[in-house]
């Protein structure tokens, strides 16, 4: 077999690809309307995650901390949660959803967050805020388990578990997007609109591409409502685009409420988008319209200009969130490229059984590695030791590998703070396929010019 699939050899992490679980839960929480999460732990667990997400989206939004200090770490810090909930509710009268996200410190000291939620319901909400709809939702995110990816997955599941309730059957479907950008949500909604399918979108973060208004009124926040979360139990089915970011919620909805679940594929590239539309069609009976045939054609027209002339045989390394990496790898293969190194930044038991990985292992005819529990030093070390790459696809934290080794890199994934506006563009759907192919090509073109590597080729393209 040409493809090696294995965890990295070193025990430690040099230049991590992911941050930890609470960050994922926080990213999920900002997708919900009237929601401000409380992260139960030290202040850095919020301050830096807000900074990180804010750098990526170039927007601000609210997440609170229970501000655990020394005494709390010694004697237990549940009083800090109690105080945080009340302070938050007093000062943010619109807030209805308050996830309480634990961290390593409060999991180690064993704070009973579930217990305190019950207590707060009886002693605070029922007494001080009897006429207000408030949902306190414990989300357990010990940082020493999983990664930001599993934190996102757990949070989506726990939100769905908390809110979903059977009412009347509905024609809507649930669309669980996974960890994506505002531009992706926009494209997914567009595809569904063309199919005339309505969806509960988890999470509706298109609004994070928000305006600067003359009356100073704009505020960035997610838009998925409590009603939509509640209605997930009534949907015709659930499509979770990402196996590792929302898959658990889809499975839970199927088990608990008999809502059929389709998990994957991540609709990156033409083929996976086709499959996605076919899945929607299967689930709803709605036909794929002519308009999408045309959009697909526009994408293929653009891609055909690039694929076999410029992209074919180009060796690519890809790192980031697993569904993104695997989706990109599949698309690169479809483009005739050679993904030679895939780096997945955590060790998820699911990778062993992931059909995408199995298919890649089975079919690639050149040397390739898929490394789990990987860090960015795995990439650098291989380059240092002779791995030849034409292109890197990954997020901004790996920028210095590209810079120091003069390898062109297209920023994709989370976070991409060192390039302007990337959150606005989709990588999913036909629009995403076009964007990816064109940006990869432009990145290569730019590199040809900088390095004077057959730059004259483009004279007659």
């Amino acid at each position: 077999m040409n493809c090696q699939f294995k965890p990295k050899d070193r025990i430690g992490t040099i230049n991590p690809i992911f941050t930890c679980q609470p960050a994922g839960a926080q990213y999920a929480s900002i997708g919900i309307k009237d929601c401000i999460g409380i992260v139960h732990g030290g202040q850095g667990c919020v301050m830096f995650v807000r900074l990180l997400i804010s750098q990526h989206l170039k927007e601000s939004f609210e997440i609170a901390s229970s501000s655990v200090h020394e005494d709390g770490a010694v004697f237990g810090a549940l009083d800090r949660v109690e105080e945080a909930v009340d302070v938050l509710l007093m000062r943010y009268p619109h807030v209805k959803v308050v996830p309480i996200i634990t961290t390593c410190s409060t999991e180690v000291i064993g704070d009973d967050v579930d217990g305190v939620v019950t207590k707060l319901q009886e002693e605070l909400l029922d007494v001080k805020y009897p006429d207000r709809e408030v949902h306190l939702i414990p989300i357990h995110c010990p940082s020493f388990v999983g990664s930001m990816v599993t934190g996102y997955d757990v949070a989506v599941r726990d939100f769905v578990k908390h809110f979903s309730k059977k009412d009347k059957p509905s024609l809507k479907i649930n669309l669980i997007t996974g960890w994506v950008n505002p531009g992706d949500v926009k494209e997914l909604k567009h595809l569904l609109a063309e199919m005339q399918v309505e969806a509960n979108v988890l999470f509706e973060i298109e609004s994070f591409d928000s305006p600067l208004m003359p009356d100073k009124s704009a505020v960035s926040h997610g838009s998925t409502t409590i009603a939509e979360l509640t209605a997930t139990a009534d949907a015709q089915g659930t499509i979770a685009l990402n196996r590792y970011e929302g898959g658990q919620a889809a499975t839970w909805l199927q088990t608990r409420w008999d809502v059929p679940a389709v998990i994957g594929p991540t609709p990156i590239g033409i083929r996976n988008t086709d499959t996605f539309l076919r899945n929607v069609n299967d689930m709803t009976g709605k036909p794929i319209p002519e308009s999408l045939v045309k959009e697909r054609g526009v994408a293929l027209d653009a891609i055909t200009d690039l694929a076999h002339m410029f992209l074919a045989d180009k060796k690519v390394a890809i790192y980031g969130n697993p569904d993104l990496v695997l989706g990109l790898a599949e698309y690169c293969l479809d483009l005739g490229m050679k993904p030679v190194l895939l780096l997945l930044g955590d060790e998820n038991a699911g990778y062993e059984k992931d059909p995408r990985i199995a298919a890649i292992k089975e079919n690639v005819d050149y040397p390739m590695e898929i490394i789990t529990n990987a860090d960015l030093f795995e990439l650098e070390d291989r380059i240092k030791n002779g791995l030849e790459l034409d292109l890197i696809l990954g997020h901004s934290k790996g920028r210095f590998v590209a810079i120091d080794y003069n390898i062109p890199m297209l920023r994709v994934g989370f976070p991409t703070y060192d390039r302007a506006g990337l959150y606005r563009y989709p990588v999913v759907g036909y629009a995403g396929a076009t964007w990816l192919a064109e940006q990869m090509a432009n990145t290569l073109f730019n590199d040809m010019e900088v390095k004077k590597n057959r730059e004259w080729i483009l004279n007659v393209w």
Partner: protein
Amino acid sequence: MPYHEFDCSKCLPERKKHAVTKGTGDNLATALPLGYLNTIPGSISERGCAYCGAKHVIGTPMKDVIHMSHGPVGCTYDTWQTKRYISDNNNFQLKYTFATDVREKHIVFGAEGLLKQNIIEAFKACPDIKRMTIYQTCATALIGDDINAVAAEVMEEMPDVDIFTCNSPGFGGPSQSGGHHKINIAWINDKVGNVEPEITSDYVINYVGEYNIQGDQEVMLDYFTRMGIQVLSTFTGNGTYDGLRAMHRAHLNVLECARSAEYICNELRVRYGIPRLDIDGFGFEPLSQSLRKIGMFFGIEDRAEKIIAEETARWKPELDWYKERLKGKKVCLWPGGSKLWHWAHAIEEEMGVKVVSVYTKFGHQGDMEKGIARCGEDALAIDDPNELEGLEALEKLQPDIIFTGKRPGEVAKKVRVPYLNAHAYHNGPYKGFEGWVRFARDIYNGIYSPMHQLSGLDISKDEIPTDRGFVTQRMLSDAKLPEEIAKSESLRRYTGKDDIIADLRKKNPPYFTPIVKAEAAE
């Protein structure tokens, strides 16, 4: 006490004592907010944690060191590549960060073995680096890992390496300031005095509380070098591990950010008799005064005067070009700690702006004392501000620009207040004479951005001016300026290069500069 009560915080009575307005006749005995107290949970404060204060703020700017955090990967990832403290060794400390990657099984069974393996592995991965710092995090502090013992064991086995440990978990104190304190004290206790430096000048200083944001340290180092002063160590921006072990041999500690580094200066004074001289590297006059004082201390004031004269002649006309155009502009000076006092008076005097508010995210009352002492009347001083208070203050004060962090800057953007990054700068360095002009330029470009003006136009309601295809900053800034100033030939806009550090590096070798020998050779 002229406390300021925010409407949004009326339900939090104790917040009232965290903000004051400096009225006419107020002084430090009549107006000072509380500070450095436990944060109110759920208030959406901007504070970070003690781990980041130690690792991210102070430890990591040390450039020739493997910086390893003992815990799950998140602490490491989150505090990696979010600052602009550069170094002249190709930014090793910015590029590489190390986490021991603690998992559930380690929480249950202990992570000391994991730590040891990590240390050995990291040195193997970076064969040129022989120094390491290890930072405790919340998780490993709570399970009681003895990082000192592990480090000692490795040092015994690997005699060519040296390891520093810092026990400052995130929960240790109300803010990042707790970590500043811990790492200062740990460094002087464990590392200072165990390396003997080569002394190459008669004038030897430690440059303390300077983090080389966008090259600040290198600008100042250039001045010191031109004065013939040997900078034994910088604590810590662009500083070397072994240089910092030799701090005890300096004649003088020159201190910039007292908030984060006064502790080590105080201890050096007590233990080694090295005096502490607080200086300001920001602003022509404060900087000139600072260079003069250092010169005076060594009896080489003339060397300082020469630099001051040269630099002032070169850059003052450019500073004044901006000052004329920034007069009266209202500024919210909302940094983390020390800049509130480094900048408050200097920007009013030298750029003509008016500081309408100062705040400190993580500072102590001592920082607020300096800030209030240095700002003018009517300024609103806020300790540990939170999201809603910040917005309320912006609404009330209507500043023309705000100097704060990246994320709060995004909040300001929505209410049409341009922001400059007070921590990492926009186009720094801001220290030094040229740097100060660069700061003025960034302020000018922010306030007079034609885009900023356009963002206030409501095309559905307002008169749309259709007579022009563009507006320049100059058209906006000079509209009401007297003609003799607008057309003055003695004033000019900034004329420096984009990158002013590259040339400095060509000029100065990266480590100690043997001035005495160099001068003798001339």
